[in-house]
């Protein structure tokens, strides 16, 4: 495989909240590279730190150790004003709940162009209007919606407004934080299709954050599984589904309901017990067990995983 361009590099990332006795380590020792043009998914249960990582990339949460690189340049910690502006433009975020993430008292026109207004990224009023119209069309909404308020829209339409707001900044990298969890089944498919189409037409790279593995399989190129702030396994999407190795990944996979009554009723539920790992003497490492398939474990476990692969 030819060397692909790394858009985002996360090195030994640690994020903590609070200080002193109340200090809480939310994310620890996270190493991820996200390549240009791919959809990279982060999967884990609530409280595992997946959103925190997404927010750290968009500079919402400060980083306490390690660094984040965007196109080879450090964007974590103190950076210059110009770079900050570039990150704001190039890294955008789509939020989970379209009911809560739009300003109820602003018109769609303002909501979508707020980023442009804040940073004076338009020539004149006509240019701004044109950009809003273009963004609306691109997400499948009509330009006349610009003069309406968010409460006039359905959940799926609101999520499209959220996507238009991210697109208008012409980003290269989009963090999609559970963009479809709050949506209805019939609308999920529409939003997923839209995200996929934009990926191709705009050359976007996604960090897709989700807790539902079934959706992730359809949309992503690579998947990382995160548990309690640590990435425990990372692999290509199909590889992860066919050969899950880490017990937590297996538990997560078994918990996903399959829409097939025969298979679902035969399914064995795997429960993850973190005490199976004995890391007191034998320290765990982050190892590439197969090309492109990373796993977190100590020597003994890695050997067992290797045996599993051969079997």
């Amino acid at each position, binding site marked *: 495989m030819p060397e692909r361009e790394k858009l985002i590099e996360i090195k030994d990332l640690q994020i903590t909240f609070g200080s002193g006795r109340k200090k809480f380590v939310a994310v620890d020792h996270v190493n991820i590279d996200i390549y240009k043009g791919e959809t990279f998914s982060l999967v884990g*249960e*609530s409280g595992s730190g997946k959103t925190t990582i997404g927010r750290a990339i968009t500079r919402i949460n400060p980083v306490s150790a390690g660094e984040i690189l965007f196109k080879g340049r450090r964007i974590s910690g103190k950076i210059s004003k110009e770079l900050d502006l570039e990150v704001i433009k190039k890294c955008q975020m789509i939020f989970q709940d379209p009911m809560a993430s739009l300003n109820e008292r602003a018109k769609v026109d303002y909501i979508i162009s707020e980023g442009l207004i804040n940073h004076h990224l338009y020539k004149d009023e006509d240019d701004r209007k044109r950009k809003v119209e273009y963004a609306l069309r691109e997400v499948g909404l009509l330009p006349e919606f610009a003069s309406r308020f968010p409460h006039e829209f*359905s*959940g799926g339409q609101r999520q499209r407004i959220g996507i238009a707001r991210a697109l208008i900044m012409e980003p290269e990298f989009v963090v999609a934080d559970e963009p479809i969890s709050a949506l*209805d*089944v*019939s*609308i*999920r*498919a*529409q939003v*997923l*299709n839209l995200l*996929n*189409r934009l990926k191709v037409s705009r050359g976007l790279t996604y960090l897709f954050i989700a*807790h*539902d*593995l*079934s*959706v992730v*399989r*359809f*949309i992503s190129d690579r998947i990382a599984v995160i548990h309690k702030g640590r990435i425990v396994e990372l692999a290509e999407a199909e590889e992860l589904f066919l050969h899950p190795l880490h017990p937590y990944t297996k*538990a*997560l996979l*078994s*918990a*996903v*309901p*399959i*829409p*097939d*009554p*025969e*298979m*679902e*009723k035969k399914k064995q*539920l795997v429960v*993850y017990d973190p005490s199976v790992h004995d890391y007191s003497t034998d320290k765990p490492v982050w190892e590439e067990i197969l090309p492109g398939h990373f796993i977190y474990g100590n020597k003994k476990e890695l050997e067992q995983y290797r045996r599993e692969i051969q079997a």
Partner: protein
Amino acid sequence: MAKEPILSAKDVEIQFSLRGKILKAIRRCSLDLYEGETLAIVGESGSGKSVFTKSFLGMLDANGSITGGTIMYEGTDISKYTAEKDWLTIRGKKISMVMQDPMTSLNPLKKIGKQIQESIELNQGIKGEAARKLAIEMLKKVGIPDAERRANQYPHEFSGGMRQRVVIAIAVACRPQILICDEPTTALDVTIQAQILDLIRALQRELNMTVIYITHDLGVVANVADRVAVMYAGQIVEYGMVNEIFYDAWHPYTWALLSSLPQLGVKGEDLPTIDGTPPNLFYEVKGDAFAPRNQQALAIDFEEEPPFFDVSETHKAKTWYLDPRAPKIEQPASIKKLREQMRK
């Protein structure tokens, strides 16, 4: 089926008056519920699945009322109940409900034990210490460790999954005959979801309950249901045993629901979507409500409402496709794919 239904709703109509206009939320909807079974009701938001089941407990909002049809339960037509006193003989005692969001369905100012105790005192006439003991027993039953201590805590000290267990404990404390679970796991994580579904199943067996699930997650349906009813625009459009719905569906709306699942998607291709929006129920719906969104709709779909046609003894679908006079229409490829998977 030869068995007698324990609850039988016939041609139920429910209307809401909103800003002087009448909204027909449920349009002549019928449903039979048999003892010990698990029935899942699926449909998109606004299809009326919650409203329909809430009418079994007299929990409609003040501006809504049952305007037609009957709901027969234990020999009486409960749809005619108007006084709160009548409903109290059923709600919580015979039929109870688990709501979607465990964050908002508990009282944040009361201790957990007290909240369960309250339900027992109100519905079973057991008072004081005895009720408290029973409450702690219920907590143990729903799998909360260290129940004595936990009973003295407040809801904010519980996680989402634990709170949902408490809500279930309150609902089943009086050993209801029918338990209605309104999206019990949508607000929860997948791992927790699996545990809660297992818990409900275990309780169902132990207390011999009949369970109605309301959900839009077809994965959950496949996991729990014996029978499935698909709802669209205030009507049940298809119902049958779970395998019949998943592998041999006939209503175009059921097809659309099943094929838009990301699990069946092929990478790099668009997922099939359901275009358009559900009909506005402020107006009279003419013909098949799904016809405007159905690309293969027949001419008659726009004219006349289809009756139910039998697919099998237990499986009925409300679509003109099954009329012998209709042109031959094939099930879409994704439905056939599901059926082939089963044969393997």
